[in-house]
């Protein structure tokens, strides 16, 4: 039995189904992200775990205990809200102490635990400030300290980094992971940012219009997306629609008269398929030397890498190559595209493959 499990959990608002039959088993100490575009039901799922929204159907259990209809104040879970939801009329220390106060922890122990929690998020010097005197990142960390100080069995994070600017967000990602590793709390994070989900989670749950569509480790999610939506939502990709052709040793997809070889599972001849290849899996070479010829339509310098859009007979392809410190092909110049057939994924959308 998993530590936290959701069994066929659904939430309907009137006739609208926000979350449909979510089944999820989370082990103790895991860091799981719920990833999806806005309106996919990820926040509703989190709120059902927190007890702020009651499921229409299904069962939620924590450590073997059924908590489906338990009040939020009886669950003892730590929640960090998107807006941080700090109490504006209390100091940082009072905010953090609130949960302990509710648990009637004696004053001496309370003070000590608040001190530890603030040290954990590196805000010891700010105990007597009010939330309005703090920056976004600091408020964020107060919210984390407040949620963690009660030693919750599960920490729930609702888009915790979305209100921070890009640089701070990156720092906080590592910070969040560091804290989670240190205290070992089972953590569920809701996010619409795939990079965030991939970088700090043990497992990522992808949600689309109320349903879970893939649950996998970040690396596998990226390399083996189960459908076209995930492959384009998680990272960048080139999607090519074609028809499957089987022929002896060389089976592959025929797209615009070109046969692209790929080692793929059993698919019947003539089945329509979608191929996916990541921009960084494509290599640029001299025209004629690769599998496909094209012309550089535009190029963007991103510092650590170059991003190319290349016009090919199959349509525009995005290619990214690492910056080796040399000037790469100019816009308008003819280039060849090469890749390893193993990196050309057949997406199961229309195909019978698993």
């Amino acid at each position, binding site marked *: 039995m998993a530590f936290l499990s959701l069994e066929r959990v659904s939430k309907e608002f009137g006739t609208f189904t926000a979350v449909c039959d979510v089944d999820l088993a989370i082990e103790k100490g895991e860091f799981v992200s719920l990833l999806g575009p806005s309106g996919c039901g990820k926040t509703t799922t989190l709120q059902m775990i*927190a*007890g*702020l929204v009651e499921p229409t159907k299904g069962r939620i259990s924590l450590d073997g205990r059924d908590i489906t209809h338990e*009040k*939020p*104040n009886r*669950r*003892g*879970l*730590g*929640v960090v*809200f*998107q*807006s941080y*939801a*700090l*109490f*504006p*009329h209390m100091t940082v220390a009072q905010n953090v102490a*609130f*949960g302990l106060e*509710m*648990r009637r922890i004696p004053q001496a122990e309370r003070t000590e635990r608040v001190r530890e929690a603030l040290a954990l998020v590196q805000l010891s010097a700010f105990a007597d400030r009010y939330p*309005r005197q703090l920056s976004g990142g600091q408020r964020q960390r107060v919210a984390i300290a*407040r*949620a963690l100080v*009660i030693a919750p069995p599960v920490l729930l994070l609702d888009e915790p980094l979305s209100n921070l600017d890009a640089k701070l967000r990156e720092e906080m990602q590592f910070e969040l992971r560091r804290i989670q590793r240190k205290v070992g709390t089972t953590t569920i994070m809701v996010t619409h940012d795939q990079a965030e989900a991939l970088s700090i989670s043990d497992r990522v749950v992808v949600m689309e219009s109320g349903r879970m569509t893939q649950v996998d480790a970040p690396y596998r999610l990226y390399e083996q997306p189960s459908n076209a939506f995930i492959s384009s939502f998680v990272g960048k990709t080139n999607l090519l629609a074609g028809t499957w052709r089987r022929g002896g040793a060389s089976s592959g997809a025929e797209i615009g008269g070109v046969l692209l070889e790929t080692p793929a599972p059993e698919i019947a001849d003539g089945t329509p398929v979608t191929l996916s290849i990541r921009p960084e899996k494509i290599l640029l070479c001299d025209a004629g030397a690769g599998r496909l010829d094209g012309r550089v339509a535009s190029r963007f310098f991103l510092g650590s890498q170059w991003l190319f859009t290349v016009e090919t007979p199959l349509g525009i392809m995005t290619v990214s190559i690492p910056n080796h410190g040399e000037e790469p092909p100019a816009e308008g110049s003819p280039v060849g595209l090469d890749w390893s057939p193993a990196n050309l994924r057949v997406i199961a959308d229309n195909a019978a493959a698993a």
Partner: protein
Amino acid sequence: MHKNGPVALIFHILVLTFVLAPLVIICLVAFTPENTLSLPTAGLSLRWFEAVFAHPDFVASFWNSIWLATLSATLAVVFAVPAGLAISRYTFPGRDFLNALFLSPLIIPHLVLGVAFLRLFALIGATGSFAWLVATHIIIVTPYVLRLVLAALSGLDRSAEQAARTLGAGEWTTFRRVTAPMILPGITGGWLLAFINSFDELTMSIFVTSPATVTLPVRMYMYATESIDPMMAAVSALMIAITAVAMLVLDRAFGLDRILVGQR
């Protein structure tokens, strides 16, 4: 800093003069040694202030008004906060009707309300007691509190309440420790407006006060219909002084900006 042009400056000065001049003049008149309403030209005198305190009617009415305003403003808060919570957070049949009902005393002329209450009290045989007077004042000041409470609630980040719940607070504790402090500016502002409106109310009170419960404005009105002398100015000056002191104290204690505009 943005500087005002000469035209804007003149405009501001005119507005301020228009607002403040009557108050300044009435305060000056209060110190006149003459027997008529006039500016003190030949020295200052406190004789009209002495006259006020020599009038037990005025002193009694003053305390009446203070108690009336305090009680009705406080009770209006007690009613308006739960009403505001219900109206802003739940949908139930008759919600819009209730909202309109609570706000309707703002629209109905106080003269009409006064006649209506007089009639009602005569019908049910309510004597002109202080309790009934308080009841009528609660009705006319509740809309002010409700408006401000509703405004405060609509600007409230509800996730703070949810956070309190997840941290182990029950519903009542959440209200007491989180919701109430967060809407306190609205409540305090509403209470102040209610207090001032009740303390000031004349039109309706003329109908519903009995000789034992005459409020200060009614007392002044009755006195002024018989004779106009500088004692009226002295009473007015005292009222202005009391209000100003109350405002100063509030500003020192809480900050008026925070109470009336909201913190942050």
